[in-house]
Each structure stands twice: as structure tokens, then as C-alpha cells.
């Protein structure tokens, strides 16, 4: 698989290490009253879709950026990648909207 790195172009997936579902970017507030309830699904539950999946890849043997890659888990086709930092910034901007749009 080749990952289209937003800064460096197509890169071999071997240079990356994989973390999992990009919902991991939406870390709940650990200080909140209900932290135990919100952290359980955050840490342990996954949608695990057959089809499009937004997921975190770390460019370990590269520029050490975290990317959010959109990939089809049935065909392994990669549809796009963005810097996770950009996704987080966008989420922050539309915090009320909430999800990983």
C-alpha cells in the first residue's frame, strides 16, 4: 500500500506504524465527573467497519507526522490522507459540531 502523505507525496506504508480508528483523536475529558464511562468506549470499543475506515498512521520512518488515512478495509484502497494536526484543528474550530468531519 502507498499512503499519499500530504507533505511528502506517495510513501510506502511500511514506513508507517498503525494505531487504529481515528476516533482516538476524540479523547474525552479525563477530569470530568463521568470520565470512567466515557473512557471505556474510547479505549476499548471500535466500530470496525467493513468498508471506509478513517484511521491513524504514524510516519515513523519518515517525518514523524500522524496522519488520518481514509482506506477501504475490504479492498485496501486508500482514498486520502491528511495531517492529524489539521483534523484536530478543524475539530476544535467546530467543537459544537463535534465529530471527525
Amino acid at each position: 500500500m502507498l499512503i499519499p502523505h500530504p507533505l511528502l507525496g506517495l510513501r510506502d506504508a511500511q514506513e508507517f506504524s498503525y494505531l487504529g480508528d481515528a476516533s482516538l483523536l476524540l479523547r474525552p475529558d479525563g477530569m470530568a465527573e463521568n470520565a470512567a464511562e466515557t473512557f471505556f468506549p474510547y479505549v476499548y470499543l471500535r466500530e470496525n467497519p467493513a468498508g471506509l475506515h478513517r484511521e491513524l498512521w504514524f510516519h515513523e520512518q519518515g517525518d514523524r507526522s500522524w496522519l488520518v488515512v481514509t482506506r477501504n478495509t475490504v479492498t485496501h484502497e486508500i482514498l486520502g490522507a491528511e495531517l492529524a494536526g489539521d483534523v484536530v484543528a478543524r475539530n476544535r474550530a467546530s467543537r459544537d459540531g463535534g465529530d471527525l468531519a
Partner: protein
Amino acid sequence: MRYSAFRVLQEALRGHKGWRPLWRDPEPQAAYDTVIVGGGGHGLATAYYLANTFKQSRIAVLEKGWLGSGNIGRNTTIIRSNYLLPGNEPFYEFSMKLWENLEQEFNFNAMVSQRGVVNLFHTDGQRDAYRRRGNAAILAGADAELLERDALRAMIPFLNFDNARFPVKGGLLQRRGGTARHDGVAWGYARGADRAGVDLIQNCEVTGFRIENGTVKGVETSRGFIGAKKVGVAVAGSTSRVMAQAGMGQLPIESHVLQAFVSEGLKPTIPGVITFGAGHFYISQSDKGGLVFGGDIDGYNSYAQRGNLPTVEDVAEGGMAVMPMIGRARLLRMWGGIMDMSMDGSPIIDRTPIDGLYLNSGWCYGGFKATPASGYAFAHLLATDRPHETAGAYRLDRFQRGTVIDEKGAGAQPNLH
């Protein structure tokens, strides 16, 4: 039809005209007491023990493809019971005991071969960890021996003992471990279940669940609605897809692809099962002579039953590091299967919040060895509504309760288990 030497002789004289298909091909009935979803090893073993041991009746196994088309027919067939943690070890030892009597039990040649499993260690720290695991196994009634270098060399002289990076310092040996014929296991359980009256329904994909007031009433399938009092789901890599149809789309499971490889047939050379401890590589030799080997999962979520080349390279490198002599063997076949990787690397055999719906999943890439015990424990749960004594830790809510069973201590990251 029971198999025996006499029967084989008789058929030989009659031109083998008396053999019959191993199981019927029944039409689905309108309703059953128990429906098992998934005709892999675990589903078939569950049906077998439900009917034969727990004396239940009106049972069906629904399989979307053909029996054994999933991971049961794709694995590298290693069986062993040398786990570390108390939640796991008694269960796997129970499974080993069932393996030891399996062929007599279901009158089918599953080629269970206790040729020994050696886990190599390469550092002093790893030796300590293996010693501890061996001791844990012994405490649970399993067997384990720690072999130092010389004893190991006498047994397996061809290992690359003096590899500069990964010198072989010894191994943890379980003599009762080994291999079994994966297809034979599926066929033996299928035939035994069929003979006990279980309907094995192939080409029947479950597409939905009928749930009323929090209680399961049956399943929608590609062959129509089938009513059921209890539904047990054992669909391995398809767990999330199937459970999402019951509204349980969020589970502590990720699906990942694992590849396996077989070489051309060679003269007998690998005595048992050997696993490399400094990378991830395991190998045995089939009775036909092919080297059967594999390594890590590819490492990313996947429902494609095929993997990618970097993992092939990694597996080949692991093999070359530990036994360079296999470098000239030609690869004959390779394939992939979809693993139900759980968040702690251990399985789930439990009820669900939906009455009458039961889940068997999270086998990662070690579920073949568990097939007999998994079937037995799942049947026990379905029949009695209580977990089997060796499977009590395999609860679905353990992640919420903080009682995970993490053999590797890798944390909630399935691709590291």
C-alpha cells in the same frame, strides 16, 4: 456411518461404492431451539457438543459459504496449552485434553499429532519470561520443559544458534503440543453434529436479527427468516459485521488479516513446531512434506482475505534468521484469513445484553487450538446459561470492569497482540 479398518477393507473390495456424504444438506426449518451462526471450527464444535454432550435438540448451524471456508480452513494448525495467565491457561489445557481424545470421541481422523512445540528464546530476559510461563502451565496441569542450548541443539541441530543479532539460547518445549489437520477437525465435528440431528445449513448468510423487547426471536437470512430461542454467534473475523445487525456495532474487536504460507513438499526435516522468539515466525512441516509457516498479522484493519508484501518479506526474514536452510525452499501457496482481534488478545464467550443472544469471539490468531474447548464451553453456556468453569474469565464486560486478560501486556491495541 462409522469408520474402521474393517470398513475400509470392505469398501476396497466393493470398489468404494458404499461411502456416503459425511453430512446431509437439509432445507432450513421454520424454527429451532438453538441457532449457531458461523460454520467454522467453533460453530461446528459448539453444535457437536450441544447435541452430543449437553443433549440438546432442534439445533441448526447457519454458514454463509461452505463449512470450513473461514479461518478453520486457513490456519497453520498449531495446538498448544502453555499460556501464562490464570484466565487463559486452564481453558487451553482443557482444550488440549479434548484434543488428546478427539479422534476417539468423534470417530474421525483429525491427524492430531503431538509432535511438540518449541518456543525459542534469545535473551536472558526472555528465558526468565518463558520459565515463568512454563511454570504457570505446569501449575495448571499442563507440561512444560525449559531446554538450554545444548539440549535444544541435540534436538534441533539446524537452528542458527550463533546468529549475531538473535542467538538461540534455548527454548520452552511443550511435548504435548503439536498440530492437527484443520479441515479434518471441521469435518469431524460437522459429521458428528449431523449424526446427532443438527441441521448444517450452508449458503445461508445471516443478514439480520429479529429482536423483540430485548429478546432475540430469530435471524433473517439469505434463505428467509429462521426462528430461534437462542442464537449463538461464532463468526470469527466477521463478528463486528454480524453483531452490528443486532445493534451491537461497538465491540472490543478489530478485524485484521493474517497470512500463511506453504512450501513445496520436502523430505521430513522439521521435527515439531518451532517458533522464533526475536521476531514473529512459526513453522511446522505437514505430513505431505510442505513447510507450513506464518508470522505477524499485517497490522491494519482488514476484511480482505489477502495481505500485503511487506509482511511476506518480514515472515521470510524471520525464517531466514532462525533457520537459513529453508532459504531455497520454494513457496507453493499463500493466503490470508480475517482475525477477530480483541482488545486484550483474549477471547470472549459470553451472554450479551440481548436475551437469548450469545457471543463467541476475539480468538485473535490463536483460536484453532481452542476449537474443542471453545465449542464445549459455548455449548455449556448455551445449554445451562452458566459459563464453563474454565471459561469464566471470558466475559464481554471485562473491559469495562478492568479485568482484562492481556498475555502480552500490550494494552488496548489489537495489532500488538
